[in-house]
């Protein structure tokens, strides 16, 4: 990588404007990014252990008048940030499992088995890609309130978040395109060796598709992590709510210092996870971008 040239060449670097200008821009950009990226987090850390008065009177004072470390356990116990984060994780992991299950099995039929009626399904899935999510928001809500045919209500169950997530056309088409690229000879060879469809699926197709499964899993987790409106609608029970839905509700009733420590805890865990796994994470997100093309 390092021997490959970029936009700026060796001879460019000899010109004094570039030679001194580039590091200058670099430093400025670095400072800017630190202020934008780390600044709010540091501010949150400081405010999380300050008194309400300090936060309101002098939010930009470098050092608070006194450190209130007990804010943090208070927020954990009284605001129950831990429980909400747990719900968020349950929702994200459940959505990931249901999405992966539906899109791998579906793509397996459409790409590998290719029955005659597969084309109709592919077309019907493709058609929903052009329709924005807003069209089904209200009817989807009504479906969850009372499932047609079954007559049961999914409201206030995690299923209400897990299942609709899986109906994403994008994931299925991406998965199908990846399966399409698996050489047919491999599949035929496995068939000749006597592998049934289930075995073909679990022993050949899935192991070969690890990278794309990873990308779809990552995208689903990020998506459900960011979701707000849908869980707000279908999970009115506070005990089931993810952190995104719970925080604004809690914020209305708690004092500012506790609010800030609750926010700090809500931010801390994902940030630490990100910093630990940043390499894998950024690679996965980058790959996802390539998939969109």
């Amino acid at each position, binding site marked *: 990588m390092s021997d490959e040239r970029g*936009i700026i060449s060796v001879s460019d670097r000899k010109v004094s404007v570039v030679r001194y200008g580039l590091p200058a821009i670099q430093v400025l950009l*670095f400072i800017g990014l630190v202020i934008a990226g780390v600044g709010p987090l540091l*501010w949150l850390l400081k405010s999380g252990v300050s008194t309400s008065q300090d936060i309101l009177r002098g939010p930009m004072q470098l050092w608070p008048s006194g450190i209130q470390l007990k804010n943090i356990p208070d927020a954990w116990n009284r605001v129950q940030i831990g429980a909400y984060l747990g719900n968020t994780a349950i929702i994200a992991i459940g959505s990931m499992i249901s999405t992966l299950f539906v899109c791998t*099995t579906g793509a397996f039929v459409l790409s590998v088995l290719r*029955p005659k009626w597969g084309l109709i399904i592919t077309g019907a899935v493709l058609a929903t890609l052009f329709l924005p999510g807003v069209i089904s928001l*209200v009817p989807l809500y009504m479906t969850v309130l009372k*499932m047609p045919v079954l007559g049961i209500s999914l409201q206030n169950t995690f299923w209400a978040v897990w299942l609709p997530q899986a109906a994403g056309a994008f994931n299925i088409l991406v998965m199908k395109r990846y399966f399409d690229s698996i050489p047919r000879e491999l599949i035929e060879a496995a068939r000749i060796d006597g592998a049934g469809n289930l075995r073909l699926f679990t022993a050949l197709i899935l192991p070969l598709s690890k990278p794309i499964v990873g990308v779809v899993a990552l995208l689903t987790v990020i998506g459900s992590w960011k979701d707000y409106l849908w869980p707000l609608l279908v999970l009115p029970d506070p005990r089931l709510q993810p*952190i995104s839905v719970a925080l604004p509700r809690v914020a209305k009733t708690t004092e500012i210092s506790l609010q800030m420590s609750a926010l700090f805890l809500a931010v801390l865990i994902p940030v630490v996870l990100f910093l630990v796994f940043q390499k894998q994470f950024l690679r996965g997100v980058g790959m996802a*971008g390539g998939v969109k093309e």
Partner: protein
Amino acid sequence: MFQQRTQKSGRSVATWYRSGGLSAVFFALPLVLIFLYFSWGPIVRGLVLSFQKNNLVAPPEWVGMSNFSYVLTDPQLPQAALNTLYFCLLALIFGFPVPLFLAVFISELRKTGWLYNVLSYLPAVVPPVAAILLWTFFYDPSGAGVFNSILGWFGLGPFAWLNSQTLAMPAIVLEATWAGAGATSIIYLAALTGVRTELYEAAELDGAGIWRRVWHVTLPQIRGIILIMMLLQLIGTFQVFTEPFLFTGGGPNNATTTILLLIYRYAFINGDFGAATALSVLLAGVLCVLSVVYHFLTRRWSIS
């Protein structure tokens, strides 16, 4: 059903078996059921609902086009449409060049690039709702607010931010850009690794400066992904909800009421599900045209 299937397959047992036979049906079942319940079903139901009067209590009744005429004559609609367009425009102006610039710049840094990457992605890791609550506090309109005290050091302000009709929308877009720029720039960065570098050599020999190399060599090669990100951003910003809902609830004086906020109010505040779906269908129609147009544009441009 089983008998019918086996009969039909009698014609060519081999093809039937190769394409999975009955097990293909089983494999397709999750997809078909999930899509029937949560995608195809709701889409059809949405179209039906928009011609009905429905409040979930009384049995639905057909009302023809009256939902559409009600929605289209609602005095709030022009403002909401303008607000949504304004949000899209601002998001495009702020949010579009920033990640592109970041990505091109970071791709030039061989050794320290990852650090810039991590830093710029950090805001995207913060749960969006937590970020919004935090920024609401930053935007405190009093002189002691975070942004107002920073600007106060330079003798500016204090500004009313979210309480001001003119500043509320730009303030929301600023936060949205902060939260989104890192994620977009990662995708551009991945695209930039595919740029053919020997062209830089040629461009340099032809006497092209650094800016002209970026403009004429780098950007054209990632044109495809730029257009796709633009399309996705437009479709996303047309359906913006969380930010205005949590920052201002649509205020002050409806200055940040977007179309989706209006749909939310129809359905979940007024209980008028017919009007809500009618407006959803109208918005979906506009977005559908947009995505088809862009689809063909991107296809044409990436070929030429």
